[in-house]
């Protein structure tokens, strides 16, 4: 099998973050190559390199064996490389035909000729869509098929797919897999970027696992099983040293008062589920992004209404640490001191002097190790890790009885991560009920006194050991791959 596209020793850095670190990867024609990895592992950056949106700092890209510089998307398209984007590159206000022909529309046309041309392409891709229909009216599955068709028009050599099953129902996924199989047999080199084990296991001829920008594992079909792949993705090997601090186990003895009781709770992307959190507990829900964690926490905090079920009990003194730090966790244009003056963590009183705000801020900034020059800097000026610490400084100060957090250590270095985890444990020990949703398995295992796995909005309890989680995930993956019931 010839190599359609190869990454040879590519590296790319953004600011202080090494997104991709000396990666070698080959995409062979007529094969499906799955790129596995968590968010931030480097998969998207590699894809953007292949599309000409980003250039490598080091290393090179070879197309059919020849080193090539891909300067912009047009160049990539000229070499027959295209991508099916996760958030489709479709203009919703335009029609099916217009999106399909956007890349190579003629100078001017009559409606009939235009639609005829579109029809021809639609038929070629086996799509039964009305060319005049606005994309906004299409269902998700149809949109994805259109997105694939759009990409296939340009992809004569390499087709990348970014998280294609993220928004699909099982039935739609099946249709997709059949299409991918057909494309593979036609000789296209397919790269499947995903964090879903089951998809990789089912489809891929080759699997490459990325972690922290580097290749963590390589395998051909059948060589590695789900458990091994999970370990590679989440970093079982050699990532155990987290400052060496042992975190306190759950306090034994009488269970504390209930801080949160949810019964039959359901939202658009999760449930129905039951959940209880008591004082002193650290309940962790672990799973890959997009399985309903975000909405669950929002509903629990009262930001969004539930579609069904009740919250029989919920402490008023709550801390809420959102998953989207920059959009929901901080007011970026505002100063640090002002961010810290919002919500529960605000200084007492309605009117503050500048000195009071600054002192209040300084105390917290120091306590939570936020590296900043002055409390009057704007939150936008902080690095990502410090921004997260700022959010924690605001939320965890005071004595919250319930802590709801989504990915609380995302983007933090090891020391800060240890600090945050210790902080959450301290809160729990002081009588708070802590509920954390995280994609980081190490974190889940380190923190949890009770552990759940969340898949497609449903919670499944699991023992807090690596082996148990890997087994459960693999079991659920195999379950679905075999078309079994949930």
């Amino acid at each position, binding site marked *: 099998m010839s190599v359609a596209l190869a990454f040879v020793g590519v590296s790319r850095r953004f600011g202080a973050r090494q997104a991709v670190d000396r990666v070698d990867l080959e995409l062979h024609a007529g094969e499906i190559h799955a790129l596995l990895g968590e968010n931030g592992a480097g998969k998207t950056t590699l894809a953007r390199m292949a599309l000409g949106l980003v250039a490598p700092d080091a290393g090179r890209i070879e197309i059919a064996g020849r080193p090539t510089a891909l300067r912009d*998307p*047009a160049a990539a*398209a000229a070499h027959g490389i295209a*991508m099916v*984007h996760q958030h489709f*590159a*479709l*203009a*919703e*206000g*335009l029609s099916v035909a*217009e*999106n399909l*022909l*956007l*890349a190579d*529309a*003629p*100078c*001017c*046309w*009559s*409606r009939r000729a*235009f639609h005829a041309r579109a029809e021809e392409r639609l038929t070629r891709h086996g799509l039964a869509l009305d060319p005049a229909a606005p994309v*906004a009216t299409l269902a998700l599955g149809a949109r994805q098929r259109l997105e694939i068709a759009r990409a296939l028009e340009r992809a004569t050599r390499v087709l990348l797919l970014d998280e294609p099953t993220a928004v699909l129902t099982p039935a739609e996924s099946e249709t997709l897999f059949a299409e991918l199989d057909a494309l593979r047999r036609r000789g296209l080199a397919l790269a499947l970027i995903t964090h879903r084990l089951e998809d990789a296991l089912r489809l891929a001829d080759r699997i490459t696992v990325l972690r922290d920008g580097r290749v963590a594992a390589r395998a051909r079909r059948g060589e590695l099983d789900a458990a091994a792949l999970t370990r590679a993705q989440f970093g079982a090997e050699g990532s155990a040293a987290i400052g060496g601090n042992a975190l306190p186990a759950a306090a034994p003895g009488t269970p504390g008062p209930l801080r949160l009781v949810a019964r039959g709770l359901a939202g658009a992307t999760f449930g129905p589920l039951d959940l209880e959190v008591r004082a002193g507990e650290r309940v962790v829900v672990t799973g890959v992004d997009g399985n309903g964690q975000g909405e669950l926490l929002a509903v629990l905090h009262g930001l969004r209404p539930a579609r069904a079920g009740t919250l029989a009990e919920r402490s008023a003194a709550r801390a809420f640490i959102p998953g989207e730090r920059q959009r929901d966790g901080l007011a970026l244009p505002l100063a640090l001191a002002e961010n810290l003056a919002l919500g529960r963590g605000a200084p007492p009183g309605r009117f503050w002097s500048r000195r009071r705000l600054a002192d209040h801020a300084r105390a917290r900034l120091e306590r939570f190790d936020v590296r900043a020059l002055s409390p009057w800097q704007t939150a936008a000026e902080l690095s990502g890790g410090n921004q997260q610490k700022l959010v924690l400084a605001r939320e965890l100060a005071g004595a919250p009885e319930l802590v709801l957090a989504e990915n609380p250590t995302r983007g933090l270095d090891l020391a800060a991560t240890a600090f945050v985890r210790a902080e959450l444990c301290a809160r729990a020990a002081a009588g708070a009920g802590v509920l954390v949703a995280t994609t980081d398995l190490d974190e889940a295992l380190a923190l949890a006194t009770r552990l759940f796995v969340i898949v497609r909005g449903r919670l499944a309890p699991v023992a807090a050991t690596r082996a148990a989680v890997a087994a459960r995930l693999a079991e659920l993956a195999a379950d679905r791959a075999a078309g079994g019931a949930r």
Partner: protein
Amino acid sequence: MSDALPDLAAQVARLALPLVLATASEVVAERAGVVNLALEGIVLAGALAAWMVAAGGGAGALGPALLAALLVGMVIALLLAALVVPARAHPLVAGMALHFACLGATALLFARHPALGSVTTFDQLASPWRHAPWIGAALLPFGLAALLGRTRFGLHLRAAGDHPAALRAAGGHPARVRVLALALAGALGGLAGATLTTVLSGTFVDGMSGGRGFLALALVLFARWRPLGALAAGLFVALLMTVELRLGADAARHGQGFAVFALRALPWVATITALALRRPDRSAAPGALNEPLD
């Protein structure tokens, strides 16, 4: 008041002329993703430019007058484009800045040259050219609709305003498209102003645009961002204005001040009411309106 219907229709058409052009201009700009708050200023500047070129020049000066208005409008819009696209200023703020600049510049220039002679308006022409503005304004929305819907430029323009990333993925250039779209919008806005001095009246008066540019901004919503919708919206508001003029003239004669006020306020009140009654879903709006390009 049973004046002949053609008389009424003619008056409606006259009033509709600048409105249709201004609304069409904004349709082009917003479809490409930029709200043009400087439209009022562009209309005013176009009116002045046309007047200055056409005044005292007789029939032959009308063509150059229109051209001048068109160019002036285009230049101002390109200034807006320079602020919004490469410099990434917020379109509303940049539009405000240009609005002031236009207001000041036109008032300044007009004060310098207050009496330039009279303009031979289109109505006063003997030749068939006197119908040119009407024919032009009637055909323009159809032409624009064809441009937006049947050409590559139009397609790229709409994509730039809806989902610039999709356009880039398709090998297009959203930034370039936005600049060109604004240039076109500016030209149309300038022409709208030109009709004020070369068709509706033969002179220039300070503040002649009378809020038409701002009105056009609101009318775009009713036009659902379509050129043909601009034609309909412009005609409708012109109808309201005609009613206001006729009834208002009556009322003024009879000293009914309130009636005059009510009628003159009609366009504003009607627009706000209609805005309020609109279904809150903005699904017809361009998806990336006012969003900066990365």
